């Protein structure tokens, strides 16, 4: 019995190490390229590219971190992501609450409508959405707001979906007691339900944040045509990679710099992401 258990444990340990390796490997490759010196990628075909740089160097980091455009673009991405989170939460959470609490006939249709916008392929829906923002009266909005509004279209269904699940896990008793004691629905929602639901909602917020920070298609179509000098990071990356195919060290360094904040962010918030999945996704 004991021996068998140990064997299982060993298999588990091996598997977990293998899986971690699979996850980390591409990130390692990115890191390796980013600290490569000349001889580690200009091989002239004489030897294969080494798995660890011959002489690791952080030169490229120095270069990009001193670049004001990088910071400007990063700040714009951050603004967009936070604004998207704000819009999605302010609009989405109350709707999710109502959808989870009230039994009314049109509920199914409403949920379907909210979720069905995710059926459109991004690349199809981006055209009308970008057109709306770039041609209608919305044209004069600052780019940050435009992109955030577009990202909200993508993020809102997720928030409603996750938040609805979160609210459903909260017992109705509390609110009922409050209403019986004369509190309004609004009061019950803001003072009683919301505080309990916050960790679950945080998960929704985190998803939307990641979605917005990583989103490329909508950001690209909205900002690329309006000729602004500051653009969201993914668009900046694409413009660098696409137009002039820079050397691998620049590609890897920029990639890592863009990913790093989000990687750290995920490390801190992973607990909430799991609570959100527990509440929202399985029903």
């Amino acid at each position: 019995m004991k021996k068998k258990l140990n064997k299982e444990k060993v298999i588990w340990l091996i598997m977990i190490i293998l899986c971690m390796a699979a996850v980390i490997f591409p990130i390692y490759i990115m890191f390796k390229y980013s600290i490569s010196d000349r001889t580690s990628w200009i091989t002239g075909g004489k030897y294969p590219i080494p798995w660890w740089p011959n002489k690791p160097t952080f030169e490229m980091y120095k270069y990009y971190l001193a670049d004001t455009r990088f910071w400007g673009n990063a700040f714009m991405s951050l603004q967009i992501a936070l604004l998207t989170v704000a819009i999605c939460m302010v609009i989405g959470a109350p709707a999710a609450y109502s959808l989870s609490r009230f039994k009314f006939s049109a509920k199914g249709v409403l949920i379907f409508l909210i979720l069905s916008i995710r059926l459109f392929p991004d690349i199809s829906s981006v055209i009308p959405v970008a057109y709306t923002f770039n041609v209608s009266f919305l044209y004069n909005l600052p780019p940050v707001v435009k992109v955030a509004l577009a990202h909200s279209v993508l993020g809102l269904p997720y928030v409603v979906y996750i938040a609805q699940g979160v609210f459903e896990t909260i017992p109705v008793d509390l609110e009922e007691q409050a209403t019986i004691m004369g509190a309004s629905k609004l009061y019950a929602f803001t003072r009683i339900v919301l505080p309990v639901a916050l960790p679950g909602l945080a998960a929704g917020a985190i998803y939307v944040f990641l979605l917005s920070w990583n989103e490329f298609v909508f950001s690209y179509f909205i900002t690329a045509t309006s000729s602004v000098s500051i653009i969201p990071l993914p668009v900046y990356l694409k413009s660098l990679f696409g137009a002039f195919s820079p050397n691998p060290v620049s590609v890897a360094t920029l990639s890592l710099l863009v990913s790093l904040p989000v990687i750290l962010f995920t490390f801190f918030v992973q607990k909430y992401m799991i609570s959100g999945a527990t509440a929202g996704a399985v029903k």
Partner: protein
Amino acid sequence: MADDIRNNGRFYNIYRSFKKNLFLFWTILPAISYIGIFFFIIAFFLINLSLTQFSGGQAVLSPTLANYLNIINSQEFRDAFIRTLIFVLVSTPLQLITGLLFAMLINKEFKGRGIVRSIFLLPMAIPTIVTTAILLLFFSKGGHATSLLLGEYAWFPRILSREISFINNEFTAIGISILGKVWRDTPISMLILLAGLQSINKDQYEAARTMGSGSVKNFFYITLPLLVPAISSVLVLRSIEAWKEFIFPYILAPSYPILGVLIERYYVQLLDPGTAAVIGIFLIIFIIIGSAILNWLLEQARRYLVKV
């Protein structure tokens, strides 16, 4: 509830339900109208464009069904459809398997669980565009992958005699796109499945163990049936995303477009939004049909499991 109705008058009842609905109305309205407006703008645009014929970027004829007919008869479209189907059929189950593996590995109390969990979540934090860039570096000619297969590293045997181009070969190009997609999206499947696993009562395993059942049996007779809802979620959500996939094949398999990439090609490169819209509409139809079939299959599976 019954007491309430008896105690209060009819008028008060209506007033109450109105008040109740007013809150409902004000909370749901912003979300519904926001999504609704964009839903109709997108749908209107797509249908309108799909009925317009374009030539050299200029609309020349509307309304017409020419775009639909062209697409139905186009070999390019059929090829793209088959590729998309393969993409969906391979990447969705693969994401389920990797997600399940990851979820089961960390559904255990152990030291450093938080760190392992964070590491498993990492791919989600890497922007897609970065993932594609790294894969491209790794798999392009003269990169690690070809050097490895050519046996240039001493510790690895020579497998190829001539260097191949991964992105210019249908099999490998779609293959690395799927690889990228699965790598990137496994954490999402993992989270959903982990949630499912955590809701399974530990007592059931205890009971099974006292009856002498091994862990493999446990997995097939307890875990899997109880995970069906989570697995369904994963399959439905991930398959929809797979149908819609764009960025991985766009960068990694440019010569072998799937439907999402074909839309971009017609819209941006060939300046033909009409045909692009038609492909988009077909894609939505495929998604709906695909999800319906999947739901039916899952329903059958569920019934079968209940019987067992």
